[in-house]
């Protein structure tokens, strides 16, 4: 269907205008009704499902950070959980010792994780392929061991429990006293971040990143400072992951070294691949699938969630390398360059 639309558009663009307009209107309608449903969810579904949705939003945002890094800059990371944990711990410490305002916590989490990502990016941006994977893996382990051994600050392997009830402003004003308020806060943050990342991906910066991914030598010979772009992409990705971490701290009111684990980094990669690299919204679809499989389907097959996810993951790489987003977008032939993801 879409393949024929695409080819006909090349032949006679003016004929195509009205069906295209209809398609766009249908799409806008679909998106709006989905958003409506998402915002109305706490009124429609039980509290367990709301928690599930919150989990999807948090992981979706984390997956979005990796999708941006991998899809736009072509940099694969096995340590994305590190930035998530930095954001989560920062937000938890701020909430416990400074202010309960989630806005301050989120900003601080973004700044700390983003700064850490800039510093690591400075070292990793020159590396490619397996070396990049190893360096990110190494940083992930560093943060994970720090979370366990720096007991005074992080609470060690027990983590930090009993983070105060979150509030938008102060302890008196704008308290997110009910799960529904927390959910709406997460939804708004996730939505705004998604829109911002989409905007960035479509900006000159995004195009430059994709061009660098396609052919770094040529970009460099054209006078572009490719390493600087890669460092910037790394920093931005880390800041988004940190924001996701701060949301996790708000939602669970608990952080632990598991937030920095290798297992989480792998899980995020699984989400991004299932959802579809480079699509951005696919990150949330991938997160939804992983969370639902882990919490719902696994109830029928206890302890077999990873088996199911692993099989799904393998099948996706073979039959739908562009993930669910790619399936939805149709079988349009993709440019060769986008296949070679490891830069």
């Amino acid at each position, binding site marked *: 269907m879409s393949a024929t639309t695409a080819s006909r558009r090349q032949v006679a663009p003016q004929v195509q205008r009205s069906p295209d307009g209809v398609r766009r209107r249908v799409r806008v309608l679909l998106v709006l009704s989905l958003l409506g449903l998402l915002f109305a969810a706490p009124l429609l579904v039980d509290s367990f499902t709301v928690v599930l949705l919150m989990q999807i939003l948090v992981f979706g945002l984390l997956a979005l950070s990796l999708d941006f890094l991998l899809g736009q800059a072509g940099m*694969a990371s096995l340590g994305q959980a590190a930035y998530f944990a930095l954001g989560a711990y920062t937000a938890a410490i701020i909430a416990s010792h400074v202010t309960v305002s989630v806005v301050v916590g989120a900003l601080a989490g973004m700044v700390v994780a983003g700064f850490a990502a800039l510093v690591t990016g400075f*070292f990793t941006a*020159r*590396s*490619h*392929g*397996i*070396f990049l*994977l*190893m*360096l990110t*893996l*190494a940083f992930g*382990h*560093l943060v994970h*061991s720090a979370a366990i*051994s720096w007991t005074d600050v992080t609470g060690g392997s027990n983590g930090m429990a009993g983070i105060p009830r979150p509030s938008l402003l102060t302890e008196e004003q704008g308290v997110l006293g009910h799960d529904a308020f927390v959910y709406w806060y997460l939804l708004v943050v996730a939505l705004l971040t998604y829109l911002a990342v989409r905007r960035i991906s479509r900006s000159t910066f995004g195009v430059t990143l994709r061009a660098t991914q396609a052919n770094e030598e040529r970009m460099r010979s054209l006078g572009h400072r490719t390493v600087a772009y890669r460092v910037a992409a790394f920093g931005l990705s880390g800041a988004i992951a940190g924001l996701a971490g701060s949301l996790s701290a708000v939602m669970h009111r608990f952080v632990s070294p598991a937030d920095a684990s*290798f297992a989480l980094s*792998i899980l995020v*990669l*699984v989400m991004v*691949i299932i959802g579809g690299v480079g699509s951005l919204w696919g990150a949330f679809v991938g997160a939804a699938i992983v969370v639902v499989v882990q919490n719902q389907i696994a109830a029928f097959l206890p*302890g*077999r969630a*990873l*088996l199911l*996810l*692993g*099989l799904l*993951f*393998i099948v996706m*790489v*073979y039959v739908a*390398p562009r993930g669910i987003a790619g399936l939805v977008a149709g079988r349009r032939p993709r440019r060769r360059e986008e*296949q*070679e*993801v*490891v830069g």
Partner: protein
Amino acid sequence: MSLGNLDISAVTVVNGLAMGALLLLIAGGLSLIYGQARVLNLAHGTFFMVGAYLAHTMMGAGAGLMGLAATLLVAAIVGALMGGLLSLAMRPLSGRGPLDQALVTLGVALVAAEIVSTIWGNDVHSIGAPAPFDGSVQVFGSSFPVYRVVVIGLGVAVAAAIYWGFDRTNYGAVIRAGVEDRGMLAATGRNPSIVVTSVFALGGALAAVSGVIGAPILGARPGIDNEVLILGLIVVVVGGLGSIKGAFVGAVLIGQVQVLGVAIMPAAASFLLFATMGLMLLVRPTGMFGAVSRRHA
């Protein structure tokens, strides 16, 4: 991944050599598959884990020399089969860039870990050294398990065998030719796909065999797959990807860092490992003996 509590002494160095020899067995297969088939096999630790659990099943109740030999043989066959199957799984992806292949091996690792835990459960098993080697010897005035001396010997033997096999035999030349130019290799009447499959089988067998050999030191337990994979990756990254010589030097170095780290400051042992790797990559971005071109990686 503790090797036991030891005072810092010459024994620690010998212990590090045993760890290094084990790492060499692990990293050898990893480096082989990467170097000769250009696939980053993230299921390598899983092959090791299968070998370790085979050792638990076949030698868990105590085994003699024959039991060890039988276990090694079974592990080699199972490992070769797993490696061969994995290479078949890689074939449809050959035109797709390195990440997709690595991702499939990662998926295989996830699935296989679940299957292993279904078969063998989630208990932690420690496995005794096989009977002829379960004693200890005097090394620098301290007692030292004989088995670890045997592991050092095995590591050196395998390293020599790999080096000799690739540099001095016809089969080694064929494999190296396949890396340089598949088309030219095919023109000589050999099937490059079969050569690649044999490399995978060899790498898989090596990993499973190292699982058997490593089981009395590291045990058979859930999560050992990731630990071993990460250690193996560190070794090949430090030594230089795809270089057997690099894997040798990297394994000896990382073995020392690991054991000294555990002995001196147990809490920061993994810090030391990754710091070593980070430093190496900063000084030489492709590892000690890595190719100068980064485009392969």
